[in-house]
């Protein structure tokens, strides 16, 4: 079947068409319809890997003619969320939520893809021989799980997700399915993230204890930073919060989308003494470099699920580790896997071994998906350009 299935040609608007409306592609290419009009018996026996298959460019849906979160430029990309390891520039066409598209535009510029199409949560679209439906993933603003259905088989590619509350994005939605593709960033039973509100309390207690010091909170600039700010506001902290320059654009975008973040100020140009007792959000790589010298006796905090492990925190020279994660922890992963009802689990980036082992011990079919190019966004965040003397 591999030889017969070809992605539909590219180059028309409305590539991603809702069901019920015949797409231009299909009309223009009767050859395709013919090919997908295979005998029903053949289709019913379709195996999950005939629907989605890991290839070098990412997760490929041959019957739908697209890739999910491709790491190389492809003709048609369906993207789960805006983090740079999932959302890359240079695709022919991109289908994603409005927020994800906007974030890509902010990061890569106006021409990050040939064509774009926005899709809402709960919206269903027919692509080739499959239907694609987006569901909230609870990871960051606009993040989605993608349910790909073909005949009787439903596969959910969940991208990155978390089942913990987050004031800055739509909560995770459970999507029952036959095959669940899960991340495993924190796929070890040692990763159990507590209540993020408690971590923020720790930060505020530290600010109260050291009012003459500046608190620098390392946080990934898309999602984590805004969540920390929102949590600080929820905890009643109403002083201005300062931002590293690299955070301003995306944070402003969150505000435009109606996320209340209170008064935010750029840290740049503020007198050193005036930063005593303040909280500043910065990309993790900035919190241990020259940039920090503008702050009075800076205290370095870092908001990340990795902070659960002391050695990781110490390695980075973090003084105040805050266990706040935008990924599901071990309990979240295992609870979600169980609840989807999926009989087969594909495990992508992270600690695949442990999660695959767990699934198998629970009688589930499970295998690691060898996808390269995805990682923890905090690890991949590039250092600040040039380390300018400051």
């Amino acid at each position, binding site marked *: 079947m591999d030889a017969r299935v070809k992605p539909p040609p590219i180059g028309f608007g409305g590539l991603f068409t809702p069901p019920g409306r015949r797409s231009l592609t299909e009309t223009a290419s009767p050859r395709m319809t013919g090919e997908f009009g295979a005998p029903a018996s053949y289709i019913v026996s379709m195996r999950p890997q005939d629907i989605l298959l890991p290839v070098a460019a990412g997760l490929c849906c041959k019957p739908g003619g697209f890739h999910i979160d491709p790491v190389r430029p492809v003709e048609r990309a369906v993207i789960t969320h805006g983090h740079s390891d999932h959302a890359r520039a240079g695709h022919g066409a991109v289908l994603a939520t409005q927020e994800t598209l906007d974030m890509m535009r902010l990061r890569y510029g106006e021409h990050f893809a040939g064509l774009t199409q926005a899709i809402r949560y709960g919206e269903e679209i027919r692509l080739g021989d499959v239907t694609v439906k987006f569901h909230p993933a609870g990871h960051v603003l606009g993040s989605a799980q993608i349910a790909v259905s073909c005949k009787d088989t439903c596969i959910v590619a969940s991208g990155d997700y978390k089942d913990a509350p987050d004031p800055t994005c739509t909560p995770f939605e*459970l999507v029952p*399915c036959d095959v669940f593709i899960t991340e495993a960033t924190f796929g070890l039973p*040692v990763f159990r993230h507590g209540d993020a509100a408690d971590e923020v309390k720790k930060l505020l207690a530290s600010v109260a204890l050291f009012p003459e010091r500046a608190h620098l909170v390392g946080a990934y600039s898309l999602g984590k930073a805004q969540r920390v700010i929102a949590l600080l506001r929820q905890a009643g902290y109403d002083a201005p919060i300062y931002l590293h320059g690299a955070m301003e654009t995306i944070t402003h975008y969150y505000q435009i989308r109606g996320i209340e973040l209170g008064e935010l100020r750029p840290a740049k140009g503020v007198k050193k003494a005036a930063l005593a007792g303040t909280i500043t959000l910065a990309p993790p790589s900035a919190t241990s470099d020259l940039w920090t010298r503008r702050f009075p006796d800076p205290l370095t905090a870092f908001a990340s699920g990795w902070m659960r492990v002391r050695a990781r925190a110490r390695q980075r020279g973090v003084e105040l580790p805050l266990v706040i994660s935008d990924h599901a922890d071990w309990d979240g992963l295992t609870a979600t896997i*169980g*609840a989807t009802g999926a009989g087969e689990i594909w495990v992508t980036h992270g600690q695949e071994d442990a999660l695959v082992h767990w699934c198998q011990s629970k009688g589930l079919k499970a295998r690691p998906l060898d996808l390269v190019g995805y990682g923890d966004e905090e690890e991949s965040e590039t250092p600040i350009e040039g380390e300018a003397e400051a």
Partner: protein
Amino acid sequence: MNRFAELLDRLAYEPGRNNKLRLITGYFREVGDPDRGYALAALTGALSFKHAKPALIRDLIAARTDPVLFGLSYDYVGDLSETVALMWPKQAHGNNESFPGYPSPQPSPTSAFALRASTDERGEGAQRSTAQSPDASVTIAKQSKREGHTSLTVPSPLVGEGQEGGYRGRDTNVSSHPSNHNSPPPPSLTEVVTTLRTLGKTELPRQLERWLDELDETGRWALLKLVTGGLRIGISARLAKTAVAALGDKDPHEIELIWPGLAPPYLDLFAWLEGRAEKPVNRDPAPFRPVMLAHAIEDMDFAALDPADYIAEWKWDGIRVQAVAGRDDRGHITARLYSRTGEDITGSFPDLVPALRLPGAIDGELLILREGRVQSFNVLQQRLNRKVVSPKLIKEFPIHLRAYDLLGDDENDLRELPFAERRERLETFIAKLDDPRIDLSPTIPFASWEALTAARADPASAGAGEDADAVEGVMLKRRDAPYMPGRPKGQWWKWKRDPHIIDAVLMYAQRGHGKRSSYYSDYTFGVWTAGDGGDELVPVGKAYFGFTDEELLQIDRFVRRNTTEKFGPVRHVVHEPDKGLVLEVAFEGLQRSPRHKSGVAMRFPRISRLRWDKPPREADRLETLERMLKAEAAEIEA
């Protein structure tokens, strides 16, 4: 226990001394008796109970978790206590993790929402709370198991309930209450400490298991560190005492004075610090007295000093100690040896104790004496930090006390007397003691600074004789100086022998910690040696102080501009014959070290100067160090 654990956790990350102090003082202020007293005992090493073996901890976790998952987790985390603390399963029913069965796929939006609602409610606090009630969570797990078939509720939101429902007494039999509103609260530090003291070995596993179920992650981590005796958090006893002193705005020396008479949980101490009671009286027959220290003298200081006002003596390169003997209520002699910070080190030097048979307090230096000759610090080091002081060790490294000063003579406190007078009393005291293990540190006769300079330059011919190698410099003490705690100005001066100096080449630089985390402030330096392809640099040491703030900025800039490779926080800095930075490194001594490629390790290395003027090819060679080493090594083996 959780609050104490939080303190330990925070201290473990805090690099600054002052900030550590504030964290500890804040804890003492916030936490009541007797918990804070046991915390003080834990921080000062004053707690004693039999430690649990790691094997016991492994057994506990093995009974509850999948061995593969534990193995993978342990590999990742790398620390047993921490791995167990992190992955300790909430449910108290063995391997039987609650897994609510798989509901068959119901692709209807209602069921999806049902789950969403419950995950929202779940909050993360609920997760934690389950850990606190082993018995109750069994019930809950069963409940959610039942419910699993009818709804998609996975992480049961029920478990969050009843958390704030206060303490109902530990003795209440939880299982007799079917409701899950009766979680036992986590144990207090007091409960842990007092229970561990009396608990039998066979009861320990069950007790630990109970506590692990009740505590949160940080609490479990601290508990496991405490019971296995692995509580290494970079806090000295002195720092903890300084922090507690700050609670009552007192001088830490006052605490040191009364400390030997105090015992956990220090209720009398806290009452005094909070102004609720009189100062506790030290009834210890052999108490520690806060030590008097000297300032380093600079060349320009001499002009203002009159040689006639001072007595000079050798500064011996050993360990400064206070040897105290006193009579208890029954008239028996108690003898103790204290470090200069007041730590009781008597146990490490049992061979000295019999010599301390006259009531009094001697300020002196611990040395190793072989055939009447003082050995170098390297030799003394062989006797330090040993867990077991074997008869062999005692025989090979016979300990000796060289006396500088007398602070107490029988019942009399001599500290208010002028030094010259105390010195006379000391001479009488040592003569009366007449013990080969204790002798008098000789004074150096001198009439002018020039004469003393000459003596310092050549101790061997100025009275130190064969012991000259163990002389670290000269001490100057004002004749009229009383014995005052701390480092009072103008009373005592130390004039150290000039350090060894080499010129080495900067090879690698690493970022510092805390305030220095944005600076490359830890430097690995090397010297030249013949390699296969001609001369090459071999690292001989690491230094992270000695430079001024301005010099730090200069080196930092140099490192950033001349990095050849980066490995995480470490940068390789250019080091070629004609390109690189030469550092003048001062150090106190050398030791052979199989751990270093060069085979040598420096004692107390620091950057004394930046030699921008010197090309790396002119830096020192390893042979220079080896020559120095030969002289010292011969001594250890002697």
